[in-house]
Each structure stands twice: as C-alpha cells, then as structure tokens.
C-alpha cells in the first residue's frame, strides 16, 4: 500500500467508524478492507474500541451542586466587584494617610535633619523599587511570547 493510499484509508476508516461514509466512499472503503489485511485488522480493532468508548458516559456533579452552578458564578462575579471597590478605597485611604504622615514627619521641628533625610530616602527608594518591579512584571507579561506555552 502506498503512502497516499494509506492516508486515504485513514480518512475513510474514520468516516466508517463515525458513520459518515457516502456511497462512493463506501465502495472505496470496501476495496481497502477486501484487498489489504492490515486495513481489515485496523477496522476491526478501532471499531471495537469505538464500541467501548461509545458506552462511556461522563457523570455530572451531585444534583444540589449542579443546581448551584450559576449561583456560584454569580457570587464570585459579585465578590470580584466588591474586591475592586475595596482595593480602590484602600489605596485612596493609604495614599492620603501616607501623604499626611510624611507631611507631619517632615515639618516636625523636633526630628533631626539627618533622620528626616535618611527616612525620606529609604521610603522614596522603596517606592521606586516597587514601581520598577511592578512595571517590569507588567511589560514582561505583555511582551512574553511564551506566556501561554504549555510545558
């Protein structure tokens, strides 16, 4: 059997197993089955396998759980909105609080200047590092062509 004949038979075999052969293809398929033993064996093996897989049914989850399917999704969507609002509120409060704390710290005459400079540099440095790391992560995620690669 040539490579082209083999490829043709593979297509016909699938159609025969899935009941999608038309009359012309049926004739061609019969020719292969009657002429080549290897084709006959494959037909027998795969149609037997198909009978077994055809009798398998996937189970659904417990009925109570299944009925709650959309309810669970709805709750999670609602919670997502809640988390966004909570985070936005938290960021605003922390930024405002931070601003007032820094302002009070810098304008306090009792704190010596080297301490003010040291702490300011420490917090400014931390802020720059955080922004830099976050920015790097975001740009890497956008441009990483392998991010969806399944290993």
């Amino acid at each position: 059997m040539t490579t082209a004949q083999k490829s043709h038979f593979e297509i016909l075999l699938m159609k025969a197993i899935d009941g999608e052969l038309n009359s012309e293809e049926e004739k061609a398929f019969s020719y292969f089955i009657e002429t080549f033993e290897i084709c006959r064996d494959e037909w027998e093996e795969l149609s037997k396998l198909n009978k077994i897989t055809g009798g398998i049914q996937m189970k659904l989850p417990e009925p109570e759980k299944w009925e709650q399917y959309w309810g669970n999704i709805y709750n999670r969507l609602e919670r997502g909105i809640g988390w966004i609002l909570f985070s936005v509120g938290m960021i605003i409060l922390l930024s405002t609080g931070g601003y007032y704390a820094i302002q009070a710290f810098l304008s306090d005459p009792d704190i010596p200047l080297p301490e003010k400079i040291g702490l300011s540099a420490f917090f400014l440095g931390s802020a720059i590092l955080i922004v830099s790391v976050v920015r790097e992560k975001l740009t890497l995620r956008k441009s990483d062509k392998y991010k969806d690669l399944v290993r």
Partner: protein
Amino acid sequence: MLIDEHHLLQKCRKGDQQAYGVIVNHYKEQAYSIALGYVGSIDDAYDLSQDAFIKAYKHIKSFDLSRSFFNWFYQILKRICLNFIRDKKTHFNSDAVEMDNLVSKDLTPEEQNEQKEQQMLVWKAIGKLAVEAREIIILKEFKEMSYKEIAVLLEIPEGTVMSRLYHARKALKKEIEEVMI
C-alpha cells in the same frame, strides 16, 4: 432550549449578569464535560469550567458578536484546563464516568461487568494521552460533534480533524494495551 444568544450577549456587554446566567445555564453541561475530559476529576472540572465562565464574562467586551460564543469560550476553557494540567497532576478516576444505560440494558450482568472494566481502562488511558489527542477524542467520542463542528471549533481543516482523530484513536489503543500489561 433555544436562546437568543446574540441579544443576550449584547445585554451581557452592558453588564446584565442575569442575561449571562441564561448563557451559562445553556452551555454549562458542555463546558463541564469538556473540562472533565481534560482533567478527569468531577470537582476540578466543575471549578475549572466555572473559572472559564468568569473569565469570559470579564472579557465579554472584547468578544466579537459576529462569532460563535461557544467557540470563543472554548479557547478560554481550553487554556484554563491546559494551565491546570501543566501545574497539577491529573487523576482520571473511575468515579467520573458510568456506563451508558442504553448499552447496559442489553447485556447480562457478567457482560456488564466486563464492559465496565474495559471502559474504566479506556478512561484511564484517555488520561495518559497527549493533550492534542485527548482533545479530539473528547470532542468526537464524548461530545459527539461532527467533523465540521470540530473543524470550526479548532480552526483546522476537516481533513486534519480526521487525520488527528485517526492518530488519537491509534494512540488510545496503544495506551490501553500498555495499561493492561
């Protein structure tokens, strides 16, 4: 049940979650069983298919209304399942499947047991297949989709569907033989 999908999706894009509920209820069984075919466990399939619906809702504004919702959703579901398979070991447990009642009613109890054992072997062998082979087996054997439907869903020619299916079935047969040894 027939639904006016286009109209419902337009409502979803305006933030109507109840409209999305109708879409979810319409496709949940399909989504769940495809996920089950990928990951093999009822609980994981339940969670992953829900994750996919949530992700789809969050990106519903980027969905092109001229396309089929399920074909678009399928890509999201598939990616979620593949990430899960990459990160965790999947277990194709026998409690995720059962014998078709229509098949079992014509068999004697002995034949039923034998068939059940064979089916469990097949199910476990499916879990050992490469993802591409597993995907085509799920869509054809369990979702009973036509070649044309699979071709549209996977965005490949019909001939490729049949060729992939042939190799997947051969691989499945080989896996079964290895499981039996």
